[in-house]
């Protein structure tokens, strides 16, 4: 192997079968992020598919992926770029640059998408067809520490949790691209999902000990998007570090990692006591639920500097298998069968 150009590999994925993309963050400032593709039906996994297909690496810190318009939109945080790839060949077909540190992309329409950032309080408005930044949503946070994270849309409003050194959810009118309300939910809301009843759920991590921003127990809160108010809040023990809030395909069940993987009915009035998947000599790093089968997929980063593993469990927590992926599998994206 020589330093220099690479050969482009040809992939032709059967789109009639659903697939799972695994975003391997890589190590910060290494530039070794990668994309893996897994076929649950065959159990086949292909690693580094972006680099193999395009003959250049994905970049530094793969953050998230969204499928829209028949393309996979991969947000590469510390490279400041979003690649749109063909879902069958993994070839790059579009590229958007000009960001500070993009985190997630959310499509409002065919010609408008929002891109959240860290180290930049503005939500970028992009035209995904022309691949250009068309404007910004000002959030009122200061430039130094303002950050925006996940986006969930209900009706004409997009809700955004503000994580790093922040404590609120923003409500954005997607017709005017303006923040119309904000709701304080606790220190550092790290994730947000929508349940079957159309309610929003957000999880705060509570910050860290010694943080000048404050430190408090993590919480899980349900928000009514209509009234934009908190309906109920569950507080975790101070020693807990819950994270990776996600939901089942039907939105009736919430999942998260807190050492093991926990599951809670979205209508429940109490936090679960026992995990559905206990931690047995594993370090659960990321989580997704098969939207159709309800199988639980957990990313294991091991020591954070080697190829990770994804563990596959049945809905009742029985280990079904595992497959090797890239360094620090941190996020997932399901592609439905066509």
């Amino acid at each position, binding site marked *: *192997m*020589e*330093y*220099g*150009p*690479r050969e482009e590999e040809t992939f032709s994925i059967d789109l009639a079968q659903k697939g799972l993309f695994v975003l391997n963050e890589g*190590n910060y400032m*290494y*530039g*070794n992020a990668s994309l893996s593709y897994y076929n649950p039906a065959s159990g086949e996994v292909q690693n*580094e598919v972006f*680099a*193999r297909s*395009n*003959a*250049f*690496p*994905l*970049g*530094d810190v793969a953050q998230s992926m969204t499928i829209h318009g028949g393309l996979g939109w991969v947000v590469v945080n*510390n*490279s*400041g*770029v979003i690649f749109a790839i063909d879902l069958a060949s993994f070839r790059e077909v579009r*590229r958007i*640059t000009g960001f*500070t540190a993009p985190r997630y992309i959310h499509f409002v329409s065919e010609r408008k998408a929002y891109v959240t950032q860290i*180290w*930049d309080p503005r939500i970028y408005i992009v035209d995904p067809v022309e691949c250009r930044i068309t404007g910004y949503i000002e959030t009122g946070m200061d*430039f*130094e*520490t303002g950050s925006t994270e996940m986006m969930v849309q209900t009706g004409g409003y997009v809700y955004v949790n503000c994580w*790093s*050194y922040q*404590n609120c959810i923003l409500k954005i009118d997607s017709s005017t691209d303006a923040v119309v309300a904000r709701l304080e939910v606790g220190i550092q809301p790290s994730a947000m999902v929508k349940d079957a009843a159309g309610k929003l759920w957000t999880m705060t*991590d509570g910050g*860290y000990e*010694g*943080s*000048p*921003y*404050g430190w408090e127990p993590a919480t899980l809160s349900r928000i009514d998007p209509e009234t934009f108010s908190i309906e109920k809040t569950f507080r975790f023990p101070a020693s807990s*570090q819950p*994270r990776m809030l996600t939901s089942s395909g039907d939105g009736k069940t919430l999942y998260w*990692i807190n050492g093991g993987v926990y599951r809670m009915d979205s209508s429940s009035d109490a936090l679960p006591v026992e995990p559905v998947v206990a931690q047995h*000599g*594993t*370090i659960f790093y990321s989580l997704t639920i098969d939207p159709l089968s309800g199988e639980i997929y957990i990313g*294991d*980063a*091991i*020591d*954070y*500097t*080697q*190829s990770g*593993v994804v563990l596959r469990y049945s809905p009742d927590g029985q280990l079904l298998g*595992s497959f090797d992926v*890239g360094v*620090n599998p941190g996020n997932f994206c399901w592609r439905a069968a066509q």
Partner: protein
Amino acid sequence: MRPAKFILPVLMAMLAATHSAGAQNEWWNNDPSYVTPIEEAAVVARRPLGEIGQQKTELDSAALKLTVSQSMADVLTFNSSIFVKQYGRGSLSTVSFRGTAASHTQVTWNGMKINSPMLGMTDFSMIPSFFTDKASLLHGSSSLAVAGGGLGGAVLLATAPEQARGWQLDAVLGAGSFSTWDGFIKLGWGNSRWQLATRAAGTLSKNDFTYRNYKKKEYTYDAAGIPTGSYYPIDTNRCGSIRDVHLMQEAYYKTDAGDRLSLNAWWTSSVRGVPLLSVDYRQGSSYTNLQSENTLRLVCGWNHTGQKWLLDAKAGWLHTSQGYDFARDKGNGTMAKMIESRSLINTFHAAAQAKWFAADHLMVEAQLAAYQHFVKSQDRNAISRAAGDAGGGRKIAIGYEEGRFESSAYISAKWSPSRRLGISAAIREELYGESLSPIIPVLNLDWLLTNDLTLKASVSRNFRYPSLNDLYFLPGGNPDLLPESGISYDAGLSYYKIRPDRWVIKASASWFDSYIDNWIVWIPTFKGYWTPRNVLQVHAYGIESRAEGKYKLSRDWMLEGSGNFAWTPSINHGDPADWADEAIGKQLVYVPRFSASATGALAYRSWRLSYKWCWYSERYTTSDNDMATRIGRVLPYFMNDIVLEKKFGLRRTSLSLKLAVNNIFNEEYESVLNRPMPGRNYEVFIEITPDFSK
């Protein structure tokens, strides 16, 4: 890997051999020459009593003074087998011995440790080689003779007085590729008692080299916007500018009674860009990505040489203020600061040392050193407290402010019971804050097998205490960290032979075996920041070897060379992180298994051609040593540099011109993953040394 890279040293040797026969012409009177007497240039083989059993490499002064633009990182790259990790041209450069980490290398300047108490390591790219008169390496347990914590070894840097009578001046000006300017001036004055010198050096570089970026692709399109092809673009190194200034003042005074007083002050001011990764798509012009440093190192010393005693006392102060600024243009010309970190370090140092020659073959040595560190580290990027919290709405910085007292005591006895045998036993004890290290014993042995061949062996324990960032950095510092501990064995042979004014050869090879427990690694937390933990148990072992020689072919011709080779497996034997952990039994990340370097110089009267070569084997970027990856490989590379010099003997001035060609084979390579490195580049230098005695 091209054969041409090996040819040049061979050609130089052949050229030398060709000319040696016909080089009996008359001495070129009054012309400066690079051909020096072998006696003066040779390194003495027989060890002083104080260096019994030590694995020590002395760097040749000619290597230090080769070009004004080189840093100590460059010198060590080509003149030793230790691993120099360079994050780019003019960027952070760390060194590590024997498969250990950069923080396991202790660095002293004129006897004072200069490792950052925050980070534990030293950036060798910030040390210009022209500011160093003496440099030596103490490998493995040999470093315990000067300091604890050098699990890999120690680098000793020092200045030395010229033996000047009257005024001396040396001035160098250099210009090179990538809009690079280097300057150096040294003004000295001396008499039988005083030696005074002032040095200044500066570097200014846009450092905007271009390179073929194989980590990105651009596409070509037809008139209808349909892609027709793709190519790897030519990119420019972004945000990598350099502006360094160094000033040094030295004063030495000696008495007839054997006392010497010294004062060394070295001030550094540096503003450097931090180059963007080759996988970064952000526009360099829209960003400020700068690190700045202002450092003052001050050491005052006294030593006394008596018939039975050598006494030495030092006091020093190290002051460093560092900054890192990451800002972006908001689009309206104003810069928004995203990171504004600042740190302030003040270290006060005092040390005393006594060597007592109790008998002809017995020396007892005692050392006591103390360091008081005060560190303030913060990200000034003030954040607002959460509303409702005490002080809500108030801006506050994130960081820590801590101090730590460190002291180290050392006592040793060195005994040479016969001409052939030398034994040294020593104990070091260290205090870090309120933690007292276990006793650190060291045992060294020298055995003169023949008049030319010496066997050396040593065994020791060692400890390295966590840095202040390891303990207190916010967020992530871990005050519960344990010190890293090690046991090290080594044994080796050293060979030395000289034929006065004809040739000299010196060679050494040593085997080492080290076990390091509680190796500290920073790992991510689930809250988005990193924290250090005692994770690894490492077995580092291997072989280091070095050979150097000089051959005076005739009065006009001289050939010199050196070569280094190291085999350094550094294996993780820690507990598996979990059942899927594939890292156990594997080489540590960014530690090459093999490294080698060589230098050669051919001098003909006032001409000299120098050649530098180095090679590192693959550095793994994953702890499971994944070789199947297409994106995480840092491949082996060779580096070849050449310098041609010519001295002119003018009436009252010596003048020399130098041309340096770096990376002469225009190799495309990375030293660290996705950090671009420059291709072939050039530098020219002019040096003027007036002779005030005429």
